[in-house]
């Protein structure tokens, strides 16, 4: 083992690794930029990931159709092959319909918030080792995306862009402990901060912290972004499913069920600009 550490190969390898480490750390310190090596390889593999994701989505659609029509398919076994062909056609139709719905919703959000500037993105990979649902989208700085840009769907807030590459970006979701979103209860106006927690992640939920004991929030209330700084105001975040006392303080927290099913989304919208952007502060989790 001594020879290993004294060998010329080891010195070369140590130099290469040191350079890569320095590049990675510098990129991270510089503020949410992907390291050059990750950016380069990410750009190279992105088209293949998109193809793989498209295949995966088509297969999922087909399986879902088979599951929901299982009884019918059993009763019509003789027509199996014809149904398969029709299902393939329906899957193609659904893809087009989903795209159509997506753009319709996009236009609705755009008409309600004329100050929003969007960049549409497709999810190209999900990090399975990240239990908080982090994913990568197919748009980067070339599409005008910057770090901390909010990510939404027509259903509500997804998260924010945490790292930006040239052609891809990484998104931190509302389920992550690294996010801090200023929010209010749409009914009572009580303010709080949404941050993910390992305590509620098993249900796919997130937490609204810093609620005053005297607050009037109740189960079933809708929570929306407070606005200012990173996130525009009025974007739906989630619905309160439970209210409890913090373990080490007298404050309360609410468990939220996000309106966006993070594990099921395929397309998102990145808000690249809006009125009042960056006026207050950045998320404290970063």
């Amino acid at each position, binding site marked *: *083992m001594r020879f*290993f550490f004294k060998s010329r*190969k080891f010195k070369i*390898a140590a130099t*290469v*690794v040191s350079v*890569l*480490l320095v590049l*990675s*750390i510098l*990129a*991270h310190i510089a503020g949410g930029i*992907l*390291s050059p*090596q*990750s*950016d380069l*390889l*990410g750009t190279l*593999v992105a088209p*293949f*990931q998109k193809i*793989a*994701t498209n*295949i*995966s*989505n088509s*297969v*999922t659609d087909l399986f879902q159709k088979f599951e929901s029509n299982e009884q019918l398919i059993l009763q019509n076994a003789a027509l199996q092959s014809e149904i398969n062909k029709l299902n393939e056609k329906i899957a193609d139709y659904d893809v087009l319909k989903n795209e159509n719905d997506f753009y319709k919703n996009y236009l609705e959000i755009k008409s309600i918030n004329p100050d929003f500037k969007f960049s549409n993105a497709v999810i*190209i*990979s*999900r*990090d*399975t*080792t*990240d*239990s*908080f649902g*982090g*994913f*990568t989208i197919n748009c980067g700085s070339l599409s005008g995306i910057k770090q901390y840009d909010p990510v939404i769907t027509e259903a509500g807030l997804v998260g924010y862009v*945490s*790292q930006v*590459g040239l052609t*891809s970006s*990484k998104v*931190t979701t509302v389920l992550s*402990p*690294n996010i801090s979103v200023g929010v209010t209860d749409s009914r009572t106006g009580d303010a709080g901060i949404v941050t993910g*927690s*390992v*305590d509620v*992640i*098993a249900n796919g939920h997130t937490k609204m912290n810093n609620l005053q004991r005297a607050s009037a929030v109740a189960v079933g209330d809708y929570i929306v972004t407070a606005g200012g700084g990173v996130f525009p105001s009025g974007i739906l975040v989630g619905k309160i499913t439970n209210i409890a006392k913090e373990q080490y303080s007298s404050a309360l927290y609410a468990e939220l069920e996000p309106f966006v099913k993070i594990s099921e989304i395929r397309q998102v919208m990145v808000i690249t600009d809006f009125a009042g952007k960056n006026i207050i502060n950045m998320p404290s989790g970063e």
Partner: protein
Amino acid sequence: MNNKTKTFWPATAYVIMFIIMYFLTYTSVLPLKIGNSAPMPLIAGVVAVAFFYGEWLGFTAGLITGIFADAVAANTVCFNMVTLMLIGVAVGLLVNKYLNKNIYSALLLAAVSAMAYFFVHWLIFNAASGGNVITHFLLYYFPSAIYSALFIFPAYLPGRYLK
């Protein structure tokens, strides 16, 4: 069979295996997640390469695989690059000095490597996040490590039978 032919087939098999493992891990082509456990098959791939071909190829496999993984993983900066590279080097050195080359050693190394990977991942990215992090480790990370180690069986075959 000359040396080039001897190395061509295992190398091809491992490259294909890494590509498949990569896409299985980071896209939903074939969801590998079972319950709470989400495996990282690339660990077993790196362990297998280091197991059969030594610390230098283990180092190279870990480094390249890690950079590819960091390109798409959530906020890992260079975590995958460093850990997979260290796993490759450590497994290569251990096999050369202390262990026999059989499936039991490979399984042991894959299990220890996967446990080390997920433990360090949890320590860096979750342990400080507050809440019941120990339960989170036991519910998510521990089963994921066990599940990841099982990928040593397919990863072991090319090195064992194509050598």
